């Protein structure tokens, strides 16, 4: 009698157990503001704790003010960051000036924390390429093509390694949807193959526009996607700014020490619409689905932790928020006072030396623009 197939290798049990190392999400403060890892919590000074809170308040104020500007028609494309403050501020705080950042379109706050100005962020949104004059900053422009930044970050990591830089990494962001791109795997795998110092961030905010995380892959976590390329990884509570910071910092230290790349997945949530361009979440998700995430809000959590230590008050937060918003209004004025670009400007930045065709185009548009 022929043997029953499927006995030599127990794929079912391999499938059932392969996510085991990823079963526990790394956390320091839980959603009820309970400190679940006292030892790590105690590594933070009071000043550091307050600083993280300030950064998150700054990001939320930036979001609110940006939405206002957007409604007033003073901005172009904008991807809201509401809900992702801990994930973004916790992670970006782990990096140093000499680290090279490859942001996606939702990572303007990290870009600004890493040296760009708020005005630059606004100019980018308005569609004025002057916003991309980053001078000597180790920043790349916010990537629109999902996945492209991942392969480029692998290249920068290899460049950093070849330069012989001792304490530097490249770091890069994508979303849960972004992990489905071929470029995602290629980036992680290339960095691994060259053992280059890269930190790959995946901000899993639950949604890729209308497509839920579970439709991207049957893998239980996105963190474990790194395993296949020989890259260590961790899934972190991305609503816990302290856990996000520690995980990212240790990932950075590991990569910077020459041990090859690391991947960090932050579990977070996109509270609002995908972008300012007419997305309506009520078409694809319910208020009930959203509620637990609002309850897990990173600011609520830190407010409580800091309040208990007598380090924070609502009054202080409101004042700060107003200060931040005033500064954003100044940045907006600056962006609005920046000369709008012309077609001639564009043509001049197509090649280092304008081609004969472009020279003719420049002459044509100079005549037009001087009218």
């Amino acid at each position: 009698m022929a043997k029953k197939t499927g006995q030599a290798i127990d794929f079912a049990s391999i499938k059932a157990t392969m996510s085991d190392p990823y079963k526990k999400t790394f956390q320091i403060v839980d959603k009820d503001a309970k400190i679940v890892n006292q030892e790590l919590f105690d590594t933070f000074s009071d000043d550091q704790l307050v600083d993280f809170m300030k950064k998150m308040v700054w990001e939320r104020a930036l979001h609110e003010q940006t939405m206002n500007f957007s409604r007033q028609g003073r901005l172009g494309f904008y991807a809201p960051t509401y809900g992702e403050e801990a994930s973004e501020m916790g992670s970006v705080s782990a990096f140093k000036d000499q680290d090279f950042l490859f942001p996606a379109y939702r990572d303007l706050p990290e870009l600004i924390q890493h040296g760009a100005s708020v005005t630059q962020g606004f100019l980018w949104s308005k569609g004025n390429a002057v916003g991309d004059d980053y001078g000597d900053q180790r920043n790349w422009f916010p990537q629109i093509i999902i996945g492209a930044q991942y392969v480029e970050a692998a290249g920068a990591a290899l460049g950093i390694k070849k330069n012989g830089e001792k304490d530097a990494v490249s770091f890069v962001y994508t979303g849960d949807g972004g992990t489905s791109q071929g470029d995602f795997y290629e980036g992680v795998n290339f960095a691994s193959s060259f053992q280059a110092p890269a930190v790959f961030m995946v901000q899993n905010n639950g949604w890729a526009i209308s497509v839920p995380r579970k439709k991207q892959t049957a893998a239980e976590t996105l963190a474990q996607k790194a395993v296949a390329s020989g890259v260590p990884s961790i899934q972190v509570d991305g609503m816990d700014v302290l856990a996000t910071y520690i995980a990212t910092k240790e990932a950075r230290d590991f990569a910077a020490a020459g041990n090859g790349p690391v991947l960090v997945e932050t579990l977070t949530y996109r509270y609002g619409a995908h972008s300012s361009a007419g997305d309506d979440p009520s078409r694809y998700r319910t208020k009930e689905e959203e509620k637990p995430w609002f309850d897990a809000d990173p600011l609520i959590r830190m407010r409580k932790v800091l309040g208990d230590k007598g380090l924070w008050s609502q009054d202080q937060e409101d004042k700060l928020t107003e200060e931040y918003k005033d500064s954003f209004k100044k940045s907006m004025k600056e962006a609005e006072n920046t000369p709008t670009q012309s077609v001639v400007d564009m043509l001049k930045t197509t090649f280092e030396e304008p081609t004969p065709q472009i020279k003719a185009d420049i002459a044509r548009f100079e005549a037009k623009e001087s009218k």
Partner: protein
Amino acid sequence: MAKLTYIKAITDGLDVCLGEDPKTLIFGEDVGKNGGVFRTTQGLQDKYGEDRVFDTPLAESGILGLAIGLAATGWRPLPEIQFMGFTFEAVDSLGGQMSRERFRFSGKRSMPITVRTPFGGGTHTAEMHADNLENYYVGTPGLRVVTPANPYDAKGMIISAVENNDPVLFLENLKLYRSMKDEIPEGKYTVPLDTAKVAREGTDITIVAYSAEVNESLKVADKLAKENISAEVIDLRSLSPIDTDTIFKSVEKTHKVVVVQEAQKMAGVGAQVTAEIAEHAIMDLDAPIGRVAAPDSVYPWAQVENDWIPNADDIEAKAREILNY
């Protein structure tokens, strides 16, 4: 008959295709529950179920690779690429694979795939969400590239594209989606995929255009008509292959021609039309061939977009230059 926008006419055409052929499948990013980011597939998942209209993981090469495998197993895929700028992620599927399969299998196997994607500019989108990449794709043997300029053609052409057994890149103009309405017959009708249309008859000058530039050209024809200048406007509809007969017939009559495109000037559609006329009909001309195209820079960001895209004024100026030659 109902008055439908360009986008609704496409939805209506897709509905006809799904209803007629149970082997047709629509898939891509956000096309299911969300009905597409522009709502082109709105209501189709409700009507035909998740087996026929479904979301994929986020990967364009995945989407078009999936289409090839589905076609290989007897399905008739209608994948959507959310914006034409993202087709760069899937160039191998388009140019290296689906367009070559018929040849590889000595004509015995076909790839009845219709890749829909929005293109064109002028709607102040984020970078890479507005583009005119047709110039890249018209040079791909085995791939048809078509684009309707009005709602009536949009419905008739999407049905023809789906029925066609070769891969078709079906370009939908972003600016036209909601800015035009036509009377659209109910149910099935087709518009041929490889013939240009004389959008307006005339005798003094021929303007060859496609997509949104057809409307710009028609505006110019209206204006010139007030001065008793009669312009003929040809809507190419198919960018590859190009219906040169219709163009030659017109040029034979008018002896003057202006070729218009929204895309950058280098190579591509306008250059091909110009070359065909120069090669086969130059003796019919009594003036040089005029060209209107975007300059050879990258597609601009929102702020300068409208200065960059050729418009009716540019076409009028070029037409007058050729008329007065």
